[in-house]
């Protein structure tokens, strides 16, 4: 696969699901990102979205994450962003959403701390 190609994959890990995104999240595939996030929330009570390999995200990508967060809140689930790249963090800050999401450094922190 092309090194900077877009991609989404999900893996279950001990009671949680980690959704890994790669590439540039924009209007061309943010609907798939949204689907993957909502599917993950249907499977587990803790969902992490790994953004370490994301070099760009637009408002439609942010919207997919916001929808995931709202869904999780409604159902009392945990929803975190994992290893947020600088590019994504800059957009979250610009949108004043960096404090709305729970940001964690590693996939180990997806399940709630004891």
């Amino acid at each position: 696969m092309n090194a900077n190609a877009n991609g989404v994959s999900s893996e279950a890990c001990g009671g949680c699901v980690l959704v890994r995104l790669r590439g540039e999240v924009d209007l061309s595939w943010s609907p798939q990102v949204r689907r993957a996030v909502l599917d993950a929330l249907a499977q587990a009570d803790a969902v992490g979205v790994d953004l370490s390999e994301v070099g760009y995200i637009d408002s439609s990508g942010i919207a997919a994450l916001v929808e995931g967060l709202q869904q999780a809140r409604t159902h009392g689930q945990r929803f975190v962003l994992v290893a947020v790249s600088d590019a994504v963090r800059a957009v979250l800050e610009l949108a004043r959403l960096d404090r709305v999401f729970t940001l964690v450094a590693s996939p180990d922190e997806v399940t709630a701390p004891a």
Partner: protein
Amino acid sequence: MTRARARPGALRAPNADTAAHAPPCAQPADTLAFLAGLSQALAVSLDLRQTLEQAVTRVAGFMRVEAASLFLLDRASGVLECRISVGPVDVDGLRLAVGQGVVGRAVAENAVQIVADAATDARVWRAADEDSGFVTRSLVCAPLATAAGPIGALELVNRRDDRPFSDADAELLGIIAAPVALAINNARMAAELLEQQRLKREFELARHMQKALLPKRRRDDFPVLGVNRPAHEISGDFYDFFECADGRIGFVVGDVSGKGLDAALLMVRAASLLRWAGKDALAPGAWLARVNDELCETAQGGRFVCALVGYCDHEARVVRFAGAGFPPVVVHRGDVLTEYPAGGPPLGILPDLAFEQHTVALDGGALYAFTDGATDVRDVHGRRLGGAGVRALIARHAALPPQARLRALLGELKDLQLVDDTTLLIVEAARACAPDLLLERHFAADAAELRGVRQALRQALDALGIEPRLRDRLVLAVDEACANVIRHGYGPGCRGDIGLRLLRDGAQLSFELSDHAPCVEAARLRPQPLGECRCGGLGLALIDEVMDDWSIEPAAGGRGNLLLLRKRIESLDEEEAGEA
């Protein structure tokens, strides 16, 4: 020469306390402890002079000698001077040539000297004893050796037990001298480093000062602009322009011979004189003659100033100029490049000179003046660019607007090897300001196209030198605008194109998006407040946040929209005098 002086009441019989002392360096353990203590004291020293004084006193005590002294070499004069002396005779300030006496020889040969019997040894320089009445019986002297050669010597006189110095004494003194030399050398290097840092700061200040002397770029339709690029910290080049009382515009380009601080100072003086004389609205030849006479009264050391001065009217229809030792001026009119060799000799050499002047109708063309730094640049083979090379560069970039052209010319010169300060000045009528078109792209209104659009936009913004954080925000805002056109303008199932243009006018960037979608009512476009956790309207809010302002209007012809995003980038404003 400083004479040796007996310290009051200090002279005494040489053998006075011999009996009380064991021979020097009796115990290796004592020696080690002494060396360790001495090294430690020297290593932590803040006040080297005081520490050395204590060190020499300790050495004299440990070695049980009557007198000890430390000499340092002044590299420039090659003279050794006694800086510290302990014992009955004060020889501070005593000066010896390298090679003179036992001390001079230790330094000259970079080897320890032992004199068992001073009375018969030819190496001993006896004048000191004759002055003071002190009797030197035996001597040992070690050079203070460093990697760069000896920097002085440490000398001991007369063992208190009245025996001559031995080879063991000499060896020990050699060992003691090592940390002393190291400490002095370190202190000197630290002082030199401080001095270098101080000079660097001074040069930095001088550079800022010089830069401040260059005129600010004029934003209006001013017909003169310039750029200066020093080859080193400070420049011998300068340019200036100003408006005279009668509405004419005066301009100056100058180049002071030589480099370095003296050239920079003369540059400041020459720049002031040229501006002062130019404001009197003298004819260019008389202008140069007046400054030449002034400089001749004060210029020194073979320094001189090459300069070009002139006037133009506000529309740059006619230019009058005169040169002094300045490279030929190039006028580009139509497709023709004409050279005008600039008149007289440089300023500041001979008074009472006349300077030939030229009057040239520009007819919409441009006049280029450049210091010899421009023609002296070297290509990869070390060849000078020369006048022909500069003319070729001018022809190549003629289509660009003046400021962009100046940047492009300087950029080309910088790609070659700048060996001298370089200054360029253009006189040209301001054009009806067409903004620079930096990017134009047409693409299908399809989200799959956005990645390529962002890439092209990033490159165009990088070429402007916009810092990455701001660049990424601008790219995001334009991407959001494109996404809105695709999603809401055309909508699902509706095909069409989007045109994107990036324009720059000075520090003002404009992003134009045109489409053929149904006309949008601007009033219906409402961003959501940022920070709110909702899914819609975020794109518009981001555009609002990043751009200074935006507007949307129906395209000419009834169908389609023109969306205009604007952002002023202050860093684009700073670069003109800027390159200086």
